[in-house]
């Protein structure tokens, strides 16, 4: 049996563009992960509550509405309140580069912009989860970026 990586894919806020969230969810499943999909129009509170109860390793949020600054900081704060900061928060959507940098500083693990191959997301999560189980002391290990689609590492779990 052994440990499976569990990821919560959530669509917070009002925007209904769930194409990206669904494609990523399917790709993570096909990479052998257990994906909990929350559906649309979730509040930050219900996303964090679900993440806690499902004991996920990663929360992935898709935001295309421009509300990313508000939503990510809210989620990070709620995780703190629940003593669940080990849960890694990542995201994707329409987010300006400048905001991406700010968010990563704030504690968001990584942000994936449009055009990111799903394999890059899979690799990144795998590497982080791997780092977490191997060296429990290290909080967050930044995975190497594999911008190019050609470089596709396969990691078997």
């Amino acid at each position, binding site marked *: *049996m*052994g*440990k*499976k990586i*569990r990821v919560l894919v959530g669509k917070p806020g009002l925007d209904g563009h769930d194409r990206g969230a669904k494609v990523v*969810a*399917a790709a*993570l*499943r*096909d*990479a*052998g*992960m*257990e*994906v*909990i*999909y*929350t*559906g649309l129009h*979730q509040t930050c*509170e*219900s996303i964090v*509550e*679900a993440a*806690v*109860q*499902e*004991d996920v390793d990663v929360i992935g949020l898709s935001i295309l509405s421009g509300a990313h600054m508000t939503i990510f900081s809210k989620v990070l704060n709620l995780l703190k309140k*629940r*003593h*669940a900061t080990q849960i890694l928060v990542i995201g994707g959507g329409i987010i300006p580069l400048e905001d991406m940098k700010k968010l990563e500083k704030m504690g968001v693990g990584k942000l994936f912009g449009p055009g990111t191959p799903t394999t890059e997301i899979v690799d990144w999560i795998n590497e982080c989860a791997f780092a977490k189980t191997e060296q429990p002391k290290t909080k967050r290990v930044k995975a190497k970026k594999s911008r190019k689609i050609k470089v596709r590492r396969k990691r078997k779990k």
Partner: protein
Amino acid sequence: MIFLKKLLKGEKRTVAQTISVVENEGDTKILENIFKYTGKAYHIGITGPPGAGKSTLVNAIAKQLLEKNKKIGIIAVDPTSPFSGGALLGDRVRMTDLALKENVFIRSMASRGSLGGLAQKTKDVALVLDASGMDYILIETIGVGQVELDIAQVCDTTVVALVPESGDSIQAMKAGLLEIADVIVVNKGDREGCDSLIMELKFALDLRQQKAGWHYPIVKTIATEGVGIEELVATIQSHKEYLKRSGRFEKDRKEKLKLHIHELIEEKIKSHLKEFVIKDDELEKIINRVYERKLNPYHIADEITNKIFKVREDV
């Protein structure tokens, strides 16, 4: 143990993490520690074919029970993809009413495709929820083939949900769903064909009814609108009372415990066999000779098991 205290108090993060440990590792230490605190929760299974509205039913039932001030644990099982080993667990989407309720804990589980292992895992996860102080544990599974039979093994009352769609009842009988049902729900009861489905079901259940002391009730619901849910919960309640009154509750649970112990023994023997008696690579070698018909499987099996079952020789 702070951890145990937190778990018994139902602290959600602790409960969640305990479930993960139980689910991921074969380690039974935690279960040993919490077992004495379990046995109080009533287990209800909800199963049925895809699209029967199971999650919506669970959502509605839980809302009813909440009104009665009960604590509810929900386990929603979805199949693991046999190709990737991954799973998409989407049942929470239909349980948004419950998402932030203090007295509800929802956990999605992937079947992880282990042979017969699902019942075991579900049982273990249910034990954790039981220990955390739940009054009811609702277990939702898709009814296709083996899975729901496993689940019936865990539950006190099994609810089978069907919808009026062509051929549904025939499918249900084929899948053996009706065999395990204590209560039958015809959901989406405002749809065409509902009454004829109920007729068919009544006919099919007649035979079973004569044998058991329990008449198999059929409840019509429209779960999305909450119609019929009160009656459903009352029906489940009366099944519970029937079980207690007739002495079947204790009998069934003892039967289940016996089964559980048997399974644990089997599990232990299997791993013992693999680890200490005959390793896989050794077996490979023997198989070559079996393949050449120089040895036969029956003899080999006897020889191997005799290595463990010294007892038998002594007799």
